[in-house]
């Protein structure tokens, strides 16, 4: 029995996580052949994952939570483990259901778009990453999937990459959630150090008393609040609305932004109880709820309205998680499911309206109930769920959260007030979306209103029906949410869905108050919008600060680049030699001590002759009147050095050095003619002094270093090893060559790759210099100059560097 369950678990993981990630590219390629059917195919793939996940629900109470472990990086002791418990399955099943319908929807929504296949592929990749995020148990795996969702959402939000706003929204989302990702990594590592386990399930005892608790709370909360768009990081979410509607429907209902909620719920069994955790969550959650709920009234674009309500709902979930009681956590779980269903449905309906009428502006949409009757039904169901009307799931979520907060305590009363306020405003928005565009007299719209194709209607209708069905089948919901609550709050009493309404209880009275006030707010939508926009215009947001920081960073990078890559060869050389001298002299002066005075060398006459040749070469280089003579003298000096190598028993080195010297002379001579340098090289006195003194200091430093090195006794172990083994192991008597091609073959492979790259680079520079050269023609050709003005450092740098 156990073994069968494990097998089902493994298949479910492969279908839910592996399949969408692996299929991302094939789906993108497949679109070319199957055209419109791509949405159905992708949805089928999503449904396979959903089915497999549903099969796991019956065994939730009994099976051990971990089902699949595999070695990931064995040398680091990393194992990839997945955990299937109530919480991960609640999220995974919701994600799979919403995701499948969104895939289906996207196939029709992007009909005729040249990159529809790519879009479906990105969605699929995102879906797999998100499933991995909620199902994985390894801390490193959690981080990897977390970042993968950020990357995939970057691709999705910036899908219309031609538009600047889309690019900005994508970069903003990536940067903000990326900061959170780093915090998650740091928090995960801290957690692993505290608990001694690299699995999340390794944290079993409460961490509140741990000295690392404030740090852990800060890091994990930073991760969760950036991902879940809590104040003050809420600004990225509305900008992410630049994405095509299916993306918004997926990212801002059940996935992406819910990753932060998942993280908080997942950790609440060990983190809940400390003021750092619960207090921060309650304050941020309440602020976010209020900000988003009021923000929804400031917008007229339907998608922006929904974006603000998503911010509010995320705040609500965080607030509930912050309250942290059994009832509050249960309410959070119900609300998560209810919200995912109705929010995805509303986004999809809005996409349908946009598709059918050509506008999303609420002030110009009226009377669509006739031409878009199916959308109207879907919007009614979703809007009613948002308002919390029985018997929909949204109603029970609201009842539960009021029950959780109805306590005689100052903090709780405040939380309850914020919850009621939030629900009133969200409910009013629900009414607004369900009624306003569909009732009344039809207005003229850019397109003649028409119903969307089946693929785009099926999603919102099914999601609405699911919201109703789940509320009518409390027993089925319990099978999933009871284990989920047990995972979040291990000490909790068994969870039961509420089955009857207590007509005189506080929660229901508050519900009736909510409805009444929501009706009022709905009536006052227009005056409230104008008033709120006037009142809140001056509230500072990080949105503009983000731009300032972002472009400031770009400018800083540019300034640093210009400082270091100024393109002036003489300054670059000067920097290199000054640094060299410092790097050699400082350790000698501070740590190692200066060399003793060396003994006068005992050399034979011909050896003295070679030395004299080398010195003569150097002196000629310095005092030569023309460049060509200096180059030749440099060659003479190098040849003398290679002779020294020969004389003192390094024939290979001498041989190579000799060839290098010859080629250097040839190449330097060619460069000189190539650059049309003048034969003479006069320099001002101060340059002469500066360069000369730097050269003397650097040369003296290297000499001192070599003398110091020679004072230490030679360690013969390496030479002995090569002497012994060169012939025995590598069948060669020339040790130098055997080292090059056999013992240290990998190094040589790296070196020849560098030689190859240098060859390509030099050729490229020569070509660049050739094309940048002004062509002598009848008319003056201003092009290189114009280019030089636009990009001050580029062409100059290329021309200057070519001699190197």
């Amino acid at each position: 029995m156990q073994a069968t369950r494990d097998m089902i678990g493994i298949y479910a993981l492969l279908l839910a996580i592996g399949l969408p990630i692996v299929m991302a590219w094939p789906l993108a390629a497949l679109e070319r052949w199957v055209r419109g059917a791509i949405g159905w195919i992708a949805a089928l793939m999503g449904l396979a994952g959903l089915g497999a996940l549903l099969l796991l629900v019956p065994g939730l109470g009994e099976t051990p939570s971990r089902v699949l472990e595999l070695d990931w990086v064995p040398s680091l002791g990393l194992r990839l483990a997945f955990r299937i418990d109530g919480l991960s399955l609640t999220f995974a099943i919701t994600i799979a259901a919403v995701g499948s319908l969104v895939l289906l929807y996207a196939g029709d929504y992007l009909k005729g778009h040249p990159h529809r296949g790519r879009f479906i592929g990105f969605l699929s990749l995102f879906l797999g990453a998100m499933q991995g995020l909620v199902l994985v148990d390894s801390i490193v795996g959690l981080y990897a999937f977390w970042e993968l969702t950020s990357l995939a959402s970057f691709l999705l939000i910036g899908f219309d990459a031609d538009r600047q706003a889309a690019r900005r929204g994508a970069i903003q989302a990536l940067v903000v959630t990326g900061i959170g990702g780093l915090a998650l990594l740091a928090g995960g590592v801290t957690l692993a150090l505290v608990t001694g386990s690299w699995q999340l399930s390794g944290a079993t005892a409460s961490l509140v008393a741990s000295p690392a608790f404030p740090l852990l709370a800060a890091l994990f909360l930073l991760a969760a609040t950036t991902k879940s768009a809590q104040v003050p990081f809420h600004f990225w979410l509305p900008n992410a609305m630049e994405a095509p509607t299916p993306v918004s429907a997926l990212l801002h209902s059940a996935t992406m932004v819910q990753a932060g909620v998942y993280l908080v719920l997942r950790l609440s069994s060990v983190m809940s109880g400390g003021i750092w955790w619960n207090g921060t969550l309650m304050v941020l959650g309440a602020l976010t709820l209020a900000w988003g709920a009021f923000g929804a009234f400031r917008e007229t674009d339907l998608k922006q309205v929904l974006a603000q309500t998503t911010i509010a709902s995320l705040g609500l979930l965080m607030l509930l998680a912050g309250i942290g009681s059994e009832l509050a956590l249960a309410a959070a779980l119900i609300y998560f499911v209810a919200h995912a269903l109705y929010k995805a449905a509303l986004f999809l309906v809005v996409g349908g309206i946009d598709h059918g009428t050509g506008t999303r502006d609420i002030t110009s949409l009226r009377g669509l109930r006739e031409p878009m009757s199916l959308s109207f039904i879907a919007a009614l169901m979703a809007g009613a769920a948002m308002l919390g009307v029985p018997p929909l799931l949204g109603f029970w979520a609201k009842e539960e959260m009021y029950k959780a907060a109805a306590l005689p305590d100052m903090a709780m009363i405040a939380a309850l007030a914020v919850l009621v306020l939030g629900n009133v405003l969200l409910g009013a928005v629900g009414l607004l979306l369900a009624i306003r565009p569909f009732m009344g007299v039809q207005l003229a719209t850019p397109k003649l209103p028409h119903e969307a194709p089946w693929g785009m209607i099926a999603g919102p209708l099914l999601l609405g029906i699911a919201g109703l069905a789940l509320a009518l089948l409390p027993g089925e919901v319990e099978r999933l949410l009871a284990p989920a609550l047990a995972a979040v709050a291990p000490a909790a009493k068994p969870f039961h869905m509420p089955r009857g309404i207590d007509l005189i209880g506080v929660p229901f009275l508050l519900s009736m108050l909510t409805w009444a006030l929501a009706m009022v707010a709905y009536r006052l939508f227009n005056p409230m919008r104008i008033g709120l926009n006037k009142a809140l215009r001056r509230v500072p947001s990080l949105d503009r600060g983000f731009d300032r920081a972002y472009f400031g960073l770009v400018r800083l990078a540019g300034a640093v680049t210009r400082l270091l890559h100024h393109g002036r060869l003489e300054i670059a050389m000067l920097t290199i030699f000054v640094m060299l001298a410092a790097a050699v002299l400082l350790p000698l002066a501070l740590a190692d001590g200066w060399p003793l005075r060396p003994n006068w060398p005992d050399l034979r006459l011909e050896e003295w002759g070679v030395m004299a040749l080398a010195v003569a070469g150097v002196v000629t280089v310095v005092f030569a009147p023309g460049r060509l003579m200096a180059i030749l003298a440099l060659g003479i000096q190098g040849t003398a050095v290679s002779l020294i190598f020969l004389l003192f028993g390094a024939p290979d080195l001498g041989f190579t050095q000799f060839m290098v010297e010859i080629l250097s002379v040839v190449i330097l001579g060619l460069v000189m003619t190539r650059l049309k340098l003048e034969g003479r090289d006069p320099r001002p006195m101060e340059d002469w002094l500066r360069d000369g003194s730097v050269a003397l200091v650097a040369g003296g430093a290297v000499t001192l270093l070599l003398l110091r090195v020679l004072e230490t006794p030679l360690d013969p172990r390496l030479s002995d090893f090569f002497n012994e083994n060169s012939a025995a192991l590598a069948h060669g008597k020339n040790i130098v060559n055997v080292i090059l091609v056999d013992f240290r073959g990998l190094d040589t492979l790296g070196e020849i790759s560098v030689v190859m790259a240098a060859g390509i680079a030099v050729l490229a520079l020569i070509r660049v210099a050739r094309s940048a050269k002004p062509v002598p023609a009848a008319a003056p050709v201003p092009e290189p100059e114009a280019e030089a003005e636009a990009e001050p450092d580029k062409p100059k740098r290329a021309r200057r560097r070519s001699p190197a």
Partner: protein
Amino acid sequence: MNSLIFRTVAPFLTAVMLAFSIFVLLRGHNEPGGGFIGGLIAASALAIYGMALGPDVARKALRVHPLVIAAAGLLIAILSGMMSLAYDVPFLTGLWAEFNMGRDVLTLSTPMLFDFGVYLVVVGAVASMVLGLEDNEEESP
């Protein structure tokens, strides 16, 4: 380079140097020499040829672009290292084969092949630089 003597001698000099470079390459395993030195000698030979007869003639004589030679060398070096995979030993492990040729024993090995790759990379890369720089002389008035 308009010296008649230089232009007449250069092809012979190049041929001798190329032959010598291969000699140096092959003796490298037991005597001073090897791929780096051989490659530098061959590159100098090509530089001489290019200087005497013009880089276009030199390029035509090579038939392929010098960088192609370098790339082929890199490929040969990598492949010689990968041959060890067939024997389930680490990358770049030397493999040796001896053939009895009657009087002598011919020894072939992957390090030799590797050295040949080094030789080609050095020839190709240096020759492409030199010939590229020589190009300009043609253009200059």
